[in-house]
Every structure is written in C-alpha cells, then in structure tokens.
C-alpha cells in the first residue's frame, strides 16, 4: 500500500476576478521510500497541490474544495488545525524554492532548527540545539557548530538550502516535499542539493515529492512522474515509461524541449502557445489550443483518464 494516496484533490482560489481552479481533481500515490516528481509549466498548480496536503493554503482566498489525502489511515484534509500541526514538520516536511528568504533573518540557523525539534520531541533547549548541530553536520555543512550560531544572512544560498533540508529532516519525517529546491541555486550547487535529498531518502526511507520545471532533474531523481497542466494531471507513470514513451502531446512537447536543448546544437525549442488564463480555462481539454493533434471532441469535452498498465494519461487520442 502506498504511503500517501491523494484522490481527486481540488483547491480553488476565490479572487476578485472569479474562481481560479488551481488544482482541479488531481490524484496520485506516493510510495514508501520513493520519489514522485511533479512537473509542469509555471502556474500549473504544483505548489498549490503540495501546500494543500499540509493545509497551508491561505484561506481565504483559497479553499480546499474536495478530495482525499490518505496517510496512515487518516485523511489529512479533514484533520483539525491542531491535529494538522502534529503532521507538519513531523510526518510531512516541506522545503521551498527560495532558500534566501525561507529562513527567518532574525534568528540563528541553529535556533530555527532547534525550534522544530522542540516542537515534536521531548527534549530541552540545549539538547535540541545539539541535535540541530548534528543535523547541520548531516547535511555536510562545515563547522556545523559555528554555523548553527550564525544568522541566515551569513550563509550562502546553497548553504541555506542545506540548512533548510536539515530543518525539514530534523524530525525524520516520512514525507519530504521539495518545491523546486534547486531552481534558485547555481548549477553546481543544484546537483549537490538533489544528491543530498537522495541520500536522506536512502538513509531514512523518506518518501519525496519533488516539484520542478526541469525534466532533467526528474530523470536523475524521480521514480514516478506526474505531469500537470493548469490544475490537472495530464500524464503519470514510471519515470522510464514517461521518458521513453510519452503519451500526452503536452508531455511529448516537454520532452522535445529538453531533447533539443541537450542535443548539442543548443537550440532551445519552445512549445507554441501560452498557458491559458486560469480563471477562464478553455473548454474541454485545457491543452487543446496548443495541441498539434487536436480533434473536435477535445474542444468540447474533458478527456477521460486512460490507463495503460499503471501509465495513465488524460487524452482523447487514446480514448
């Protein structure tokens, strides 16, 4: 049985202009000790999906309209705020895209990690700080004791993201959600951060949800992949399947983008068209205005999810 099973998650934002269906019926499973990659263009609802699992959507304007997220026999989405606080940081942790701003500038790195430890474990202040130093050591920060006493502005970007991982992993959560953990860092540091997450995954059997726009990152780190397009799952399956045999025209387009740009000639191929306005999504399949294989039914009816042996796609081409 999978560790986390999300079914038909719907998170909407009620804004002045109307309702943004940021996540509109997304389902996925996260296996124990595995990494699920979530890819998709900006605005496809990756971050909102992740935040919904921890009920960290700003409400209002946000609202989790429906769905289930089963973990250890309970539905995370129905937990009270008080119960949810015991999940956050202990069972599920999250790290964010911008390490520069993810740590509070007014407290030392060690204090911020120790704060999490004190919240979820019965230890005193000094022990918590010692554990924080151990965590900094575990993410290979040199001179961890001195670093624990440093303030965030005294650390480099890569170092801060390591510290964030130390913070997130400090209570050995079962799930680590990493929302574009390396996007804001320079290329050499990016790889180190991803390796570090992989290391923790192997060492503690942590399951990882890895959000990215970068297909390259997915190949090197993910076991399973879910591709999202304006709030919907368009394709998901095993990473090899998705790469060798992409079914959905959108996934094929994404693949084309990386294949062309890594093909030596450095021609950056882009997909034609733009992401639709989330308030006013096209009827039928949201991708149809950009789709090269568009049929008339695509413009009117939402595509069904077609299952090819654990490799699923929502597209009229296969229905």
């Amino acid at each position, binding site marked *: 049985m999978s560790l986390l099973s999300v079914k038909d998650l719907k998170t909407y934002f009620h804004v002045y202009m109307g309702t943004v269906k940021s996540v509109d019926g997304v389902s996925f499973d996260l296996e124990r000790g595995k990494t699920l990659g979530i890819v998709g263009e900006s605005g496809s609802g990756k971050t909102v999906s992740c935040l919904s699992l*921890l009920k*960290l959507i700003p409400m*209002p304007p946000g609202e989790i309209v429906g769905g289930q997220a089963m973990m250890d026999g309970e539905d995370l989405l129905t937990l009270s*705020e008080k119960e949810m*606080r*015991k*999940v*956050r*940081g*202990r069972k599920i*942790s*999250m790290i*964010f895209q*911008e390490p520069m*701003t*993810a*740590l*509070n*500038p*007014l407290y*030392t790195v060690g204090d911020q990690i120790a*704060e*999490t430890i004190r*919240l*979820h474990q019965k230890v005193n202040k000094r022990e918590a700080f010692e554990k924080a130093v151990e965590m900094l050591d575990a993410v290979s920060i040199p001179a961890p004791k001195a670093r624990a006493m440093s*303030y965030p*502005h005294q650390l480099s970007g890569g170092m801060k993201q390591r510290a*964030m991982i130390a*913070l997130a992993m400090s209570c050995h959560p079962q799930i680590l959600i990493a929302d574009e953990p390396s996007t804001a860092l320079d290329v050499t540091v990016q790889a180190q951060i991803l390796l570090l997450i992989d290391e923790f995954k192997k060492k503690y059997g942590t399951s990882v949800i890895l959000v990215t726009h970068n297909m390259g990152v997915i190949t090197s780190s993910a076991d399973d992949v879910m591709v999202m397009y304006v709030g919907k799952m368009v394709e998901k399956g095993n990473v090899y399947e998705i790469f060798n045999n992409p079914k959905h025209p959108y996934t094929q387009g994404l693949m084309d983008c990386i294949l062309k740009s890594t093909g030596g000639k450095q021609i950056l191929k882009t997909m034609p068209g733009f992401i639709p306005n989330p308030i006013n999504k096209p009827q039928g399949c949201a991708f149809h205005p950009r789709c090269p294989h568009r049929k008339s039914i695509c413009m009117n009816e939402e595509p069904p999810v077609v299952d090819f042996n654990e490799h699923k796609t929502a597209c009229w081409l296969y229905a």
Partner: protein
Amino acid sequence: MLRFLLRRTLTIIPLTLVMAVMMFFLMRLLPGDPALNILGPEATPEEIETLKIEMCLDQPVYYQLANWLGGIVTGDLGKSFYHDMPVSKMLFTALIPTLKLTLLSLLFGILIGTGAGVISAIKQDSLVDRIIVVISTSFMAVPHMWLGLLLVLLFGVVLGWLPVAGYESFKDGGVVSLKYLILPILAMSTAEIGILTKMVRARMLDVLHQDYVLTAKSKGLPFWKVILKHAFKNTLITVVTLSGMMLAGLIGGAVITENIFAIPGMGRLIVTSIVRRDYLVVQSAIMLITFLYLFLNFLVDIIYAFLDPRVSYGSLKG
C-alpha cells in the same frame, strides 16, 4: 559597536552646539528689548541702561556668546532675565512634564498603533480590518490641536469626567495626577496611532507573505507563535524606525499641546520666554530639546542593532 557608540556621542555634541549658536543669533534678531520688556513702557532710558548692564546686554554680541558657551561648559546656564532663578532649575522643572507627556504619548501610540496594525493585517479584508483602516486614516487627517480642543469640550466641559487643563506633579498627586495627562496624550497620539497602524499593517502584510512565515507554519508551530515570534518580530523594526521619526513631531507637538492644556512644560516655557525675550532661557531650552532628540534617536539606533542581526555597527568604517 563601541566605536559606533563613541562616534555617535561625538556627533551629538557638536550638533547640539550648532543649534545653540543658531538659536542665540535668532533670538537676537527678534525685534524687542528684554530690558524694556521687564521694566515696561514707563521706564526711563537710565533705568533701562542699568538693567542692560546688569544683564550683560551692553556687551558686544560675540562676548555674550562666548560668555554663555563658557557657562555651559562649566555647567552654569546663567539666570533668567525675568525670574530671579537659575535657567538650569527652570529647565529641569519644565522638562519633567514634557518628558512625561511625549514619552507617554509615544508609548500609548506604539501600543495602540501596533496592536491595531497587527490585528488589521491578520484579519485582512474582514470587517474589523476595514473599520481599523477607516479610523486610522481619519486619525492621520485630524490636526491634533483641533482634536485637543474637541476632547476638552467633550470630556472636560460636557461630560466633566476629566480636568479641562492644568497639571499636577506625580510627587503631589500620585497616580491620580495622571488624569491631567489623559486628554493631552489622546490629542498628541492620534496622528501617531494613525500612521503607525497603517505602516504596521502594511509591513505585517508584507511579512506574512514572506517565505519564512510559511516555513514557520510548515514546522507545525501554533498560529500565535508564528505571528508573534516570526512575523511580529520582523515588523518591530518598522515600529522602532517610525517611533524615532515621530519623536520629532511629538516634541514639536508638545509646544502646542502644553499651551492648550496649560501644562507647565518646555513648550510653554519656550513660548512665554520668547514673548518675554528671555534670551538665555530660550537658548538653553532649545539646546536641551535638540540634545534630547538626538539622544533618543541614538537610542533607537542601538535598539535596531539588538533587534536585527543584519545591522552591525561594528563593521561600519570610520
């Protein structure tokens, strides 16, 4: 840090002196003669001349200036022309009500302003938020002398709950003596409350959208801890900055407020002394206020360093 302290202390002194010298000349540029003022229009030229000699006003201006500045160094501010009393004693008696008034107004304004701002931000777009925004905007628009008079009319005259004007020292009246300060403080702090509420609300909204607040929530911290420990502390810096800036306004405002409410503070002393052409009192009073203002701003900078680890005066060159 030590160097910073030293450097700032060293800048406060010359600035105060420059202000003092400017006041010295400004006073002398005012038309009117102190001796004539004291003796009245009936006085004979001889009487006026004698008094002038007694007050050293017959001496050349530079001599008077040197004499006064020399006195300051030795701690002697001279004597009032009008009252037979050392200036230092007059200043000291007047300083206490003014300090009480400005500092209590500041404190009251900070408490109400930040409180309202934080609540408004947490409850963004709710009814409470809208009410607070409307009130704080009108507070900013109301001139405080006008508001002071209205307050006097309502609480002093119509309702009769509070004294219309006057002052009692803490030594004489104890806690009850503070009732004289309630209306002046209300009048003085409204504008401050308006500005602080708006700025704290804006800053708090900004902070609440910062990633580190999300990090704090994702740790599993309870709501109030996220707000107080992580969000509010980052807003506090704004409060301190604004408070430092508002002090100048409050000290200026005290002059008017003290006159409306007949509080025997620095503002009243300065105004009456200017009318009387009591040169030495005005000069020293302005000098003292300048010094206080600079000193309090200096304190604000020190508080900064304690609040924000990114502010490090030690690393500043010079």
